[in-house]
């Protein structure tokens, strides 16, 4: 039996009449619709049958009178979607966080953007929208428009009380320290509130959303071929992954057969992008532990990859390479040779760095045994990418759910068992070496033929789910078409959202000095905004000021 059929028959066998419909839309994709109220049973059955099950994300769609909730799970060999509906007039559903703790942030996201209340969720607070966002306004519902929010008088320039006080924060020696949104250890805005006892971290509370730009909503207003360029801008560093993942989703939506040469070219750029991203992160990791020279050397060698990317795609960073139906540019033999030459130089450098990372006493003292995430915790929190592989989980999408040309290219999945910061960095270091081999193999075995085919702008009324292994882990795009050139819904689950939840687990009990090193090993990826958070250390009061108020304070020159 095929893996997707195995999943489908398991749930159907256990739940019998509660299952409304079962589909297997493609290889390693299962789609199970259950009656409302039975989603918890379906998840439990899935977990029993496949102990390696992790939650990928929850997609919510506004169907008019109902809100559809799609729970996506990766159960070892199949991406299973469990589908249920709640009525829009009373959008309440029981939480699954007690079964899979990793679902916590996804439920909060759906709550925030579509107003579905998850009964029994331990902390159902806002995730991405600002604190002062008007109640009863849910941007991803189809009846919402920006004018509604404007009319309600919402402004980001008003101060807002953040509310809750630290639980049990009476201990005299405990200090709250805010890290971010602006901090040298963070390269993008993001706020962490640390509770410290001396130099030891007792707890941390992250606040996301500073970089939320409403791309999922914006994607509904643009045509599919325009959205390729929009989703490319979700992330500056792993841009290739986003556009590639979206193109794959749309291609499987429209049942478009991509030429083999394009698949190989996509693989090459995807891996170049991975090398660039990993080297960037490794350099930053060096900087975060105070090893400036390592940072400068790694970033110098990263230039090799950036130059090659520029020669191949026309841009150093934003590749704009994938398009629906293929790629935008072809690879000529001269450049193919240069890619191989440049990468063989880089491979030699990577051997040197591996030695530095393994034997340098100051570096290993700062990373080994720090920020440990054990395998069972990683599984429970459903982390992805190098973080999961650093904890010993085998979840490389390229290997287990191959896309593009990965089923034809041999490579090793890098796994480290230690689960500490060092292991997470070593996974990336070894992956760079693997990526170099993948590119060399792809360049040598590049199939001939066209690199692009013309496709229609209209896409059928259907849906597709695409997963790829972005540099930071599994990236998931879910696209639903409605028969026009515009998508009905685009859902993006970036890897950092899956990983950030594990930071709390890693950092508890570490020292202040470990915060940047552990955070860097997570390789978080956010973007920009203009708000700030304050903590009154004396009474734990928290609030948010706008930029205007900060300016006003300064000009008043109060004592």
């Amino acid at each position, binding site marked *: 039996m095929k893996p997707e059929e195995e999943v489908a028959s398991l749930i159907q066998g256990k739940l019998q009449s509660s299952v409304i419909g079962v589909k297997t839309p493609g290889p390693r994709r299962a789609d199970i619709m259950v009656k409302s109220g039975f989603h918890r049973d379906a998840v439990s059955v899935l977990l029993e049958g496949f102990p390696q099950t992790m939650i990928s994300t929850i997609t919510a769609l506004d169907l008019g009178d109902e809100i559809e909730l799609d729970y996506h799970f990766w159960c070892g060999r199949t991406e299973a979607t469990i589908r249920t509906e709640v009525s829009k007039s009373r959008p309440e559903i029981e939480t699954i966080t007690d079964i899979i703790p990793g679902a916590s942030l996804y439920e909060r996201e759906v709550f925030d953007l579509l107003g579905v209340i998850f009964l029994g969720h331990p902390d159902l607070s806002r995730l991405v929208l600002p604190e002062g966002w008007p109640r009863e306004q849910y941007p991803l519902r189809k009846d919402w428009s920006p004018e509604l929010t404007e009319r309600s008088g919402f402004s980001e320039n008003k101060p807002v009380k953040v509310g809750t006080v630290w639980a049990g924060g009476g201990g005299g020696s405990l200090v*709250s*320290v805010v890290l971010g949104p602006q901090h040298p*250890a963070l390269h993008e805005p993001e706020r962490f509130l640390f509770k410290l006892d001396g130099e030891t971290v007792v707890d941390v509370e992250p606040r996301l959303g500073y970089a939320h730009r409403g791309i999922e909503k914006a994607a509904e207003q643009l045509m599919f071929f325009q959205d390729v360029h929009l989703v490319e801008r979700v992330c500056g560093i792993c841009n290739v992954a986003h556009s590639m993942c979206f193109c794959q989703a749309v291609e499987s939506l429209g049942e478009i057969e991509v030429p083999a040469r394009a698949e190989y070219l996509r693989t090459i750029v995807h891996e170049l992008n991975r090398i660039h991203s990993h080297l960037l992160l490794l350099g930053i990791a060096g900087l975060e532990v*105070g090893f*400036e020279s390592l940072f400068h050397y790694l970033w*110098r060698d990263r230039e090799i990859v950036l130059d090659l990317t520029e020669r191949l795609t026309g841009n150093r960073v934003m590749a704009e390479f994938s398009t629906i139906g293929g790629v935008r540019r072809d690879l000529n033999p001269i450049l193919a040779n240069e890619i191989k030459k440049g990468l063989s130089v880089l491979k030699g450098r990577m051997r040197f760095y591996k030695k530095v990372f393994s034997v340098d006493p100051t570096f290993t003292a*700062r990373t080994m045994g720090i920020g440990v995430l054990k395998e069972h915790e990683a599984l429970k929190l459903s982390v992805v990418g190098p973080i999961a592989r650093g904890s010993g989980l085998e979840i490389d999408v390229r290997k287990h759910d191959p896309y593009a040309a990965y089923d034809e290219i041999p490579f090793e999945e890098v796994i480290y068992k230690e689960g500490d910061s060092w292991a997470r960095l070593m996974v990336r270091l070894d992956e760079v070496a693997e990526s170099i081999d993948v590119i060399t193999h792809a360049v040598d075995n590049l199939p001939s033929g066209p690199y692009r085919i013309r496709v229609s702008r209209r896409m059928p009324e259907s849906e597709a789910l695409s997963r790829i292994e972005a540099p930071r882990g599994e990236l998931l795009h879910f696209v639903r078409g409605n028969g026009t050139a515009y998508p009905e819904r685009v859902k993006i689950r970036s890897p950092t959202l899956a990983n950030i939840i594990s930071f709390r687990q890693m950092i508890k009990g570490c020292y202040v000095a470990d915060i940047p090193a552990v955070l860097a090993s997570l390789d978080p990826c956010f973007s920009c905004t203009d708000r700030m958070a304050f903590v009154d250390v004396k009474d734990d009061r928290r609030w948010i000021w706008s930029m205007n108020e900060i300016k006003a304070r300064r000009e008043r020159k109060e004592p």
Partner: protein
Amino acid sequence: MSLGVPFFFRVLVFPGFLFVLLITLFCDWFERKVMARMQNRMGPSYTGPFGILQPFADYVKLFTKEDIVPRHAERFLFAVSPILSFSLFVLSVFYFPFDGVNVFSNAGFEGDLLLVLAIVTFAHFTLFLSGWSSSNPYAGFGAIRILTQFVGYDIPLLILAVSPSLIARSLSLAKIAESQLIPFALLIPWIFILFLIALQAELEEDPFDIPHADTELVAGYGTEFSGRKFAFIRLSKDVQIVFGAVLTANLFLGGPYGPVLYGSPNIWFTFWFILKILFVIVILQLVKAVCARLRLDHVLRANWRFMVPVALLAFVLTALYSPWAHFLMGVPR
């Protein structure tokens, strides 16, 4: 001692305040350039020939910046501590025999080595006060860390700094420099190497730059400072590095003494002293370039379990070895 024009010239111009300031700016540039070249970067390049005026331009800019005092800061200490730490570091440099004699035109006195070390200890304490008075969690952490680290490393540094005097038979800086017929760096290399490690911790350089670890504590104790006050904090950091290099050059590399070719020996003395300072800075930067920052608990453990006992052992070894050293240098008993 008369307090005439020559005295004021020596204190204010050469080899006093202005000279120390210029040396500091030059060393700042030199340090940055050396570090940049080690890290395969350009370093300062545009301001003046080879970017030599870059530190000067930086300070001019800092002095013209807005000076903000946080509302909850301890206003008096917050204003005074940057200037105080700067002046104390400059004062400590005054006691070194730059052109054969010190700023006060004498050969120093017995025990000015201890005086200099005491002044520097106090200067460190003002750096702690600067962080403590700004009532910011980052600055507070920086201040706690500077004190914790400093209390530890001051002890081995003191032991190692007085070790050369066992051979020089004097606690005077000028006499220690003068007695080095063979530089002590060659004669007692074990002390020299340990001293460099302790000095690196004292100067808060990698791998010991914990009190102002930028990725953890923003700017450590200096977080809340801006404008003039920050300029003084930066300056005192720079003078501190010059002090470290001057102290090392004086204790282990023979201070101002070197071949005098022609002309006034005073100019040659200054020349050799500066050359030795630059040599020490290159060594310090090299260590900085190849290390990651350690954690406070690593550093403290290394200090109390390794540095203090080893420094004591090295001190005893030097005491036993001193007759041999005299024999090697050809000094009569």
